[in-house]
């Protein structure tokens, strides 16, 4: 099933598993990531960072550093006065206790890793040497290293002068949850803890800048997901117009996953220094810096109650959760997404969703692939299995009895989404996802095998996780399409990719929309000089926003090409077709024009010559797509695990991952997104934990301590797709970037608990590490 617009396309490339155009340069070492670019005569920056989770800065002596070999300049807050402005949160709330970052610390530091000084030198080696010579006089202060600690009576205050460490307290309700809880025949209650994890793009953050005095132009290269957003932040900070700043996200960016969609102090400082010095300056985040200064996510504690009837029908859901905001508010997008993701694919008449976000002395948190959804899914889906357990139902059956049905759309959940609009699902087929996953797993057969395995002392368990994901968010995204003077089609995207394959998929889309050969189409992206306005790549939004924008611009351009062809060929407009190399007369295919021949007249022209009224000139179209509201992807993970009761090790035995992102433009790329998300989900479920000590010191700031999954930990899951096109955009598309991750931690925790059910052991903390499994077996709840 595809949308009518796509079905009309004359030459269908959309929907095919086209191999990627990006790959050859990446495979041969010719790709150009930011640190590979040649900035002639550049200096390199090193950032001195706080070693304390909380401290007062009594003084900074940079004398020795400034005199060190190769050092050009040393900057502290004192030297950066003109840009010492708040970095505003991305998503905020009227009740927010607004504690924002400055580009660099002034008199206080509030997390290990906070920037304190910047050294500019001939090379990074020398800059780091000099940074070690900076003498900072710190007065260490008590630190807060968990939301529990933050909310405890008498807790140290992360921000002096605040009444408490609470950043924001928000309650959302649908129906009358308190009454419903009292009336419910059955109520189950549990507390679930999800710990911190990181994005871990293999390329860290990176930025370089050069100022051109002759034009007043500041050019900034930034390995960012959001070039136009960074340009806007810089324009405001520097008092420049958007036209004076050109922000280039390089063609190759080594992963994003959310942390690169935020704006950081280094992005404010490095271009500023480049302007001060009149020389290019480059800063490359190293891995340690990535651990202690790139935003993280996930840390939440959920206290959940679910009320249900004898048949397992959900009556009421109440979730009160603490969210770790870190030392400053970078934005409230994550916890507000958690609030609205909670009910998932189920009809729940009464809902209470309550957020308590806290400041802590740890790296600020922000969006990270999944962005608050995996935690919400843990709260909801873990409880679904508890309901099933209470009633002696299979986990698929209790879900089946509560799913929103295909005929229910548009479905109003009763809560508000992060943009403040009523949470309304556009389309989906949740029973199809569940039935297909259950069919593939064959639960009845599994139970036989599980019982047999138990007689052999082997512990097998089955878990499910389902989700609904708001994707394709506003406000808008843009695309510009141009007939080049040389007779090619250039598709320019505002958004920049970090491995998603935009150069391939948008060429497919453009070829279908225009009708010419894909060989004539080139896609470029991530340069504010190419498209004046844009938002960026985050929240699985680009396919559903840039996709329709590309389609719209290309359809308009197709009209221009047809009109130009008709005028130049001397036939009526309805007697030409745009196809292959250009435009031809439909009843006389040999009467044809190539794109180059058209461009020679419409774009290049001849000085002083007049053109016919019906001939379009300067063939270029720009379109912006503004979604009415989010579209809703959905998915399911069904997993069988084996738990080693001796060691606590959890092994995934079988994994089925189903996903619905509406129309798939390129199934190969969609599957790539699912597989990558799944691997990240395995990390969150079993391995990855950004451990902090009670003093706020990071304990896992290298890959020796922070366990990223390798190929030994991740095997390919079975994939399947359901396609429920969205009615909210002309392509029927929805986001695909996060769905492979979102259900995985919940499903695996459910499976581990199922494996341990003979012992009554409870798994309540993620990741499910061996020590937590052993703790659970010893009756230490989730220890």
């Amino acid at each position, binding site marked *: 099933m595809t949308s009518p617009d796509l079905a009309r396309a004359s030459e269908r490339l959309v929907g095919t598993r086209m191999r990627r155009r990006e790959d050859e340069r990446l495979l041969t070492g010719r790709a150009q990531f930011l640190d590979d670019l040649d900035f002639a005569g550049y200096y390199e920056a090193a950032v001195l960072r706080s070693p304390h989770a909380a401290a007062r800065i009594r003084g900074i002596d940079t004398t020795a550093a400034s005199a060190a070999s*190769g050092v050009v300049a040393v900057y502290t807050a004192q030297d950066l006065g003109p840009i010492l402005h708040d970095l505003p949160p991305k998503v905020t709330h009227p009740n927010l206790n607004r504690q924002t970052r400055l580009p660099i610390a002034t008199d206080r530091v509030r997390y290990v890793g906070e920037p304190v000084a910047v050294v500019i030198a001939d090379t990074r080696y020398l800059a780091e040497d000099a940074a070690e010579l900076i003498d900072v006089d710190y007065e260490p202060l008590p630190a807060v290293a968990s939301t529990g600690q933050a909310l405890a009576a008498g807790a140290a205050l992360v921000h002096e002068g605040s009444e408490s460490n609470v950043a924001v307290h928000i309650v959302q309700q649908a129906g009358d949850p308190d009454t419903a809880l009292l009336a419910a025949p059955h109520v189950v209650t549990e507390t679930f803890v999800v710990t911190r994890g990181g994005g871990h793009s293999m390329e860290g953050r990176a930025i370089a800048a050069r100022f051109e005095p002759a034009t007043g132009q500041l050019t900034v290269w930034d390995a960012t997901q959001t070039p136009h957003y960074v340009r806007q932040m810089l324009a405001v900070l520097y008092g420049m117009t958007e036209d004076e700043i050109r922000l280039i996200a390089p063609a190759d960016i080594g992963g994003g996953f959310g942390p690169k969609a935020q704006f950081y102090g280094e992005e404010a400082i490095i271009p500023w220094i480049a302007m001060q010095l009149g020389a290019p300056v480059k800063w490359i985040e190293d891995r340690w810096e990535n651990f202690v200064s790139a935003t993280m996510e996930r840390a939440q504690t959920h206290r959940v109650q679910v009320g249900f009837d004898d048949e397992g029908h959900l009556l009421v859901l109440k979730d009160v959760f603490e969210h770790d905001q870190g030392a400053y508010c970078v934005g409230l997008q994550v916890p507000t997404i958690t609030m609205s993701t909670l009910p998932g694919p189920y009809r729940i008449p009464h809902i209470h969703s309550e957020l308590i976000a806290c400041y802590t002395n740890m790296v600020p948190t922000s969006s990270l692939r999944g962005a608050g959804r995996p935690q919400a899914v843990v709260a909801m889906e873990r409880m679904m299995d508890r309901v099933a357990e209470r009633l002696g139902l299979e986990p698929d059956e209790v879900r089946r009895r509560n799913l929103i049905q295909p005929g229910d759309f548009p479905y109003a959940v009763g809560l508000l989404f992060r943009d403040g609009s009523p949470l309304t699902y556009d389309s989906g087929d949740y029973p199809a996802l569940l039935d297909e996953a259950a069919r593939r797993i064959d639960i009845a057969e599994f139970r036989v095998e599980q019982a047999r395995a138990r007689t052999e002392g082997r512990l097998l368990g089955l878990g499910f996780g389902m989700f609904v994901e708001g994707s394709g968010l506003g406000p808008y995204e843009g695309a510009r399409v141009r007939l080049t003077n040389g007779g090619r089609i250039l598709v320019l995207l505002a958004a920049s990719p970090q491995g998603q394959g935009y150069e391939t998929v948008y060429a497919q889309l453009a070829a279908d929309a225009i009708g010419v050969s894909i060989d004539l189409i080139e896609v470029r992206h991530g340069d504010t000089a190419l498209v004046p306005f844009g938002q960026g790549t985050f929240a699985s939004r680009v396919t559903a926003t840039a996709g329709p924008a590309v389609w719209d611009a290309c359809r308009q351009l197709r009209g221009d090409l047809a009109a130009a062809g008709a005028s130049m060929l001397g036939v009526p407009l309805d007697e030409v077709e745009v196809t292959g190399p250009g435009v031809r007369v439909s009843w006389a295919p040999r009467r044809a024009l190539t794109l180059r021949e058209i461009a020679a007249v419409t774009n290049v022209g001849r000085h002083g010559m007049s053109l016919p009224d019906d001939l379009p000139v300067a063939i270029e179209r720009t379109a912006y797509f503004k979604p009415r509201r989010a579209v809703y992807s959905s998915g399911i993970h069904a997993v069988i695990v084996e738990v080693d009761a001796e060691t606590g090790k959890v092994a995934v035995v079988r994994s089925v991952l189903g996903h619905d992102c509406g129309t798939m433009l390129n199934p190969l790329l969609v599957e790539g997104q699912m597989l990558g998300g799944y691997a990240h989900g395995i990390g969150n479920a079993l391995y990855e934990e950004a451990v902090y000590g009670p003093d706020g010191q990071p304990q896992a700031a290298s890959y020796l301590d922070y366990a990223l999954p390798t190929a030994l930990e991740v095997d390919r899951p079975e994939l399947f797709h359901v396609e429920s096109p969205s009615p909210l955009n002309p392509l029927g598309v929805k986001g695909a970037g996060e769905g492979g991750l979102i259900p995985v931690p919940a499903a695996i925790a459910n499976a581990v608990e199922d494996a341990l059910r003979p012992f009554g052991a409870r798994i309540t903390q993620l990741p499910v590490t061996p020590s937590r499994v052993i703790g659970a077996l010893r009756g230490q709840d989730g220890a």
Partner: protein
Amino acid sequence: MAEEILPGDTVAHGTVADADQREWVTLTVNGSRQSGYVDARMTLADFLRRDLGLTGTRLGCEHGSCGACTVIVDHDKAVRSCLMLAVQAQGLAVETVESLAADGQLSPLQSAFREFHAVQCGFCTSGFLMSLTARLREGPILTREQAREALSGNICRCTGYAGMVEAVVSVSRAAEGAA
């Protein structure tokens, strides 16, 4: 102690050093002899990237864990170039990702990576290709389990490794079939 610079040598320029900390180093990179002064503490990775302009070798963690900077030393050793100093490569033969596509043709492994969608952002790709190239010189990788073992020294955050597993097995099976 400078050696004689031969015709055709590329001479690298040390970028970081006080003169007394520099060492003269001569090595072979992708088949051509390279000589130059390098700072004693300069990593092989930085030497390749900065002095020789071979930026296909990338730095992902600089502590030997992620494998993005893997190069091949003396034909069969997959080495983390972030952990090896340039001066330690004195007299050795180093191969980087830039050497894999001979005469502009992708190697079978590179082609298979494309075919099986084993690349997304591509930042880790060079390291995987070099690790696997070294491993394949020891013998074929015929099963998924062997492939996962061979891949397990490198980290990829984008792909979930699935395409790489299929790619490397397909290459070995095709080679076995042809043999």
